């Protein structure tokens, strides 16, 4: 076989792989969007689900998901920013840096179902919290901490040395430098990471299904220690009855809503990364 034929063959393989991937991935998206669009209307979004979710809407599922991820955001953000500050401002020892990196990458790699089991053992049974949305938020927060830490660390460590040195030269102490120089510059990274993390957290099923959600009758939780109902677990219930056309329809509707929420978070992360660039990087 001469080289020209080989070259063309190679290019053809690449082209067909790319076309195949595009076809598969656009099939996925179009299935969700086309089927989901048929279901979504104000009534679907604003009414309660009935009859195993086959009738009615997903109002409280949306509220539940929002509660879960806002809880996760409020818990994870301060912890993650603190960790990122520590990594960028305090830890100078390369071995410690390496260990902390291992911990964070390791935490990020843990399969989601393991978080669910951990939550079940540690919170629900050991600390005896019962099935509670707040525990779900804690677990989701743990899941997204690595994303926020790394994203904030990246933007903090990219702050030029000059900024820090000038600040110290002005007689500021370390904490002043952190609050006046590092944080304002690094917050963009933290928010980007937060949104990326939330985009992941909102769709997670396995971590919350044992510990935070109930099936029906859930409206607004009256306290921290009550279950909610959430979009992904709702889709799970509906997917298990996929031959019931009504249930399947509602499952597509709920999926589309979930994907839209996911897209909104991902795109805002992208948007923030572009627009909120700190002075030092403009």
């Amino acid at each position, binding site marked *: 076989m001469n*080289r020209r034929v080989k*070259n063309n063959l*190679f*290019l053809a393989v690449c*082209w067909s792989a*790319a076309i195949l*991937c595009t076809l598969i*991935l656009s099939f*996925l998206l179009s299935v969700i969007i086309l089927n989901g669009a048929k279901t979504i209307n104000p009534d679907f979004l604003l009414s309660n689900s009935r009859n195993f979710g086959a009738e009615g809407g997903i109002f409280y599922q949306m509220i539940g998901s929002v509660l879960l991820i806002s809880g996760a955001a409020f818990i994870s953000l301060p912890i993650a*920013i*603190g*960790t990122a500050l*520590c990594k960028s*401002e305090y830890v100078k020892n390369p071995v410690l840096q390496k260990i*902390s990196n291992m*911990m964070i*990458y*390791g935490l*990020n*790699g*843990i*399969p*989601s179902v*393991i*978080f669910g*089991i*951990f939550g*079940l*053992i*540690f919170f629900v*049974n050991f600390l005896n919290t019962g099935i509670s949305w707040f525990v779900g938020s804690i677990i989701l927060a743990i899941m997204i901490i690595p994303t926020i*830490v*790394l994203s904030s660390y990246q933007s903090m460590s990219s702050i030029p040395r000059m900024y820090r040195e000038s600040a110290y030269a002005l007689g500021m*102490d*370390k*904490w*002043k430098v*952190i609050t006046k120089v590092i944080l304002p510059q690094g917050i963009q990274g933290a928010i980007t990471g937060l949104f*990326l993390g939330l985009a992941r957290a*909102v*769709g*997670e*099923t*396995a971590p919350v*299904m*044992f510990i935070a959600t109930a099936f029906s009758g859930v409206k607004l939780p009256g306290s921290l220690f009550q279950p909610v109902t959430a979009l*992904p677990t709702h*889709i*799970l219930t*509906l*997917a*298990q009855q*996929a031959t019931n056309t009504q249930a399947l329809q509602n*499952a*597509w509707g709920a*999926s589309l809503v*979930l*994907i839209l929420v*996911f897209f909104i978070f991902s795109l805002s992360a*992208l948007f923030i990364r572009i627009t909120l660039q700190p002075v030092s990087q403009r």
Partner: protein
Amino acid sequence: MSAYISKVGKGYIIISTLISMIIILLILGVLFLSSYDAIHGGGWRLFTLTWNPPNNQFGILPMLYGSLVVTVISLVIAVPLGIFTAIFTSEILHPKYRIYVKSFLELLAGIPSIIYGLIGVAFFSVWVGELFHLQSGRTIFTAAVLLSIMILPTIITLCDDAIHHVPQKYREVAKGLGLYKHEVIITSVLPIAKTDIIGAVLLALGRALGETMAVMLVIGSIDKIPTPIYNLLAPGQTITSKLGREIAESAFSSIHFSAMVFMGMILLIIVLALTFIAQQFLKSGQRLYE
């Protein structure tokens, strides 16, 4: 006053760092303690073929086999497809469009797994059933195909990064020698990108091993190694699908529960090992978002 605030600030930073460092140890510790009963009481009997809790038989081999086979097949499908597509996006596609393709892929990589599961139940399992004239399309093969699609965007976008980061001068030198495009790619670009590509595949492997919801819905959940052993069109069970289905059914602190957690711990250790090895390969690191 300022010194006081500074102290509080330092305390906050240290405490939050400790929290995020300790969590992973806490998770490992909790899983180990909870699976101690099974390790102690079961020992090597855990590595047998029969899972039947009422008879106190907790053989996890069928689940290990399922996880292994599903993951390997999904990689066999997704890795070649992903690498060729990555070569396309980074070397053949006009650089102007690369950013759009990449953002699109990164969005796809994050689609919640439960939605893949829904598509799997509604379409894939039905198709597999009809295609191979099976009584039920809930098979190991179905799960593997679904998983391969799920990890495809991750593989493409990581491999694309790897190939794109190969400095331009290598291509120019190779081209200057009069090599065809495929020779440039095969002889000079891919060897340089190799370690990053291996890292990408390992990360995808970890993700595929830990995937729960989509697999659980389409695999059929039979705790048996199919006969004959290479029959992929039979239902099976993975560690994750077993955990997803049965953890709530087993009573807390029973041997049953403990054996389930033991499986989870094995999974966790494998995935953590993969993550660390992958990080060694991905020297450019920092790609966490996929």
